[in-house]
């Protein structure tokens, strides 16, 4: 499985300002590609193009070399899944019923999930460790559990590539780590992930590659170590950061709390302590 954006551009309004400009990104099985950038930098737009929900004005999105737009919505849904940023269900569908919706591309208009669909749901629940909560209404889950439900739905879809839009926006550190532990395990088990995130620190820990966006254009792209530097972070977020290395080799991103004028004269990137 290889999902590839090749120099794609996109404008929300015809002849309007470009929300994405010549952005490229590739993700393959086993990888976790992070998309980082400030609010409004185009992360969600990029994800919706990768999902085939919007169509690039220029450039192309390819899935295993095939144009994504050439696939029917149903075929596309069997291969690319989306975990939306907001899901606040109005009705209290159970975990199982929610995950079963991932079988929509396989179940005809006038039929219901069959034996094979039920097996796929079981496997997906098992893969994210939610089997015990299968009958719980999603309205009564924690934020982290809910994310796992939607990831399981993507797995039930049979999607080899899952696009996660800020999956840890409302999670405490423990749940954030728990979520990414599952994502890592699934990636190792043969899935590809694209994660739009506000946390460069998470990318340092979990990403296999990183793309920074700024105002719809690519700022930097490559391995976490190459891309997550003080210079790039300053450029991306308009403030100073330190990228520090701990005694065990773990790296972290820390905002510099000194005043902006002092920070601009100081080093932008430094390893320590």
């Amino acid at each position, binding site marked *: 499985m290889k999902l590839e954006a090749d120099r794609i551009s996109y404008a929300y309004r015809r002849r309007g300002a470009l929300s994405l400009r010549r952005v490229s990104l590739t993700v393959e099985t086993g990888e976790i590609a992070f998309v980082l950038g400030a609010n409004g930098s185009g992360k969600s737009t990029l994800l919706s193009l990768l999902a085939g929900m919007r169509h690039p004005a220029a450039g192309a999105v390819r899935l295993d070399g095939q144009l994504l737009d050439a696939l029917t919505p149903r075929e596309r*849904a069997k291969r690319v899944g989306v975990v*939306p940023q907001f899901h606040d269900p109005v009705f209290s*569908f*159970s975990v199982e019923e929610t995950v079963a*919706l991932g079988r*929509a591309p396989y179940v005809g*208009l006038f039929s*219901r999930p069959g034996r094979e669909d039920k097996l796929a749901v079981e496997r997906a629940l098992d893969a994210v460790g939610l089997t015990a909560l299968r009958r719980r209404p999603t309205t009564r889950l924690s934020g982290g559990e809910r994310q796992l439900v939607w990831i399981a739905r993507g797995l039930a879809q049979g999607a080899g590539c899952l696009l996660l839009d800020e999956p840890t926006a409302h999670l405490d550190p423990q749940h954030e780590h728990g979520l990414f532990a599952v994502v890592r395990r699934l990636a190792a088990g043969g899935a590809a992930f694209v994660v739009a995130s506000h946390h460069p620190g998470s990318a340092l820990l979990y990403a296999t590659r990183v793309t920074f966006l700024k105002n719809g254009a690519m700022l930097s792209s490559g391995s976490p170590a190459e891309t997550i530097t003080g210079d790039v972070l300053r450029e991306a977020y308009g403030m100073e950061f330190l990228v520090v290395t701990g005694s065990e080799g773990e790296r972290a991103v820390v905002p510099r709390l000194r005043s902006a004028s002092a920070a601009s004269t100081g080093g932008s990137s430094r390893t320590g302590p």
Partner: protein
Amino acid sequence: MRPPRRRNVSLLLYALPVALAFVALLFGRYGGGVGEAFRSLFSSGTGDLLRSLIFHVRLPRTLAALVVGADLAAAGAVLQGLFRNPLVDSRILGVSSGAAFGACLAILVSGSAVAVQTGAFFFALIAVAIVLAVGWRLGATPLVLLLVGIAASALFDALLGLVKYVADPLSKLPAITYWLLGGLGGAQWSNLAPLLVLSTLGLGFLILARWRLNVLTLSDDEAASLGVRVRPLRVAVVVAASLLVATSVSQAGMIGWIGLVVPHIARAWVGPDHVRLVPASAALGAAILVVLDTVARTALPGEIPLGILTGLLGVPAFLILLVGYLRAKGAAR
């Protein structure tokens, strides 16, 4: 809504309306009570007046009550899901207002039962057509359909006001008022065919497609990411639900609350999955309307308009559900 207790839709639920309908046939103002009605039902005599009354008057009316109840409740359940809003009911798309205007216009100019039924149905369809034509251009999102539906309702309510204003206050206006209160007194074998046929079509579609209806409760982008073409599906469901509401209102006038309250009771019983929700709502709506219609035609010497009964019972039922819902959310003390 309420924490769902996922009982299987047991045979009991489907047996309920049938059993209640059978019992309802035994009740009536004519004859010597339930026992005599039961005996005459199984007597072999052909000249039995009570028996003939049961077959020619009570049976079509009871059948109409079953079908109208099922129609309104199923339409309400499906529309609540489609609009992702548990406060929506079967009147939301302007269909009821269109039907009311059509029926009252027919009363004004003609007054024959056939004209009333036809007028109601015709203008109900015009109302849906307006909602879909305008709504489709604006993207056919739930919000757009909701707002256009409100506009269509307002339009036909205004036109209905005009009809009432010009109606003869001695002959026509009482007939209009009475029709608007709703009732199944007009149901006869001779005029049931449209209701039965159209309800079979509408309910058939919704029941066959009921698993897919779950997808409509997601946001449009989410549904699209599952490979579902949302807009055509939504329009198909709107058409089916409107057909049910239109044919019901044409037959029975304005009967409120069934389409709002029954889906909630059903959801509390079987959960929000449309696979069980749609049949459960239909069965429960049928059962409840049969009981209410029996009360409407037997409780007082004169008939009680059905819409008044559904309102009197629907409001407390709704408040009870609301309290239960808030308790479940931990918001009420």
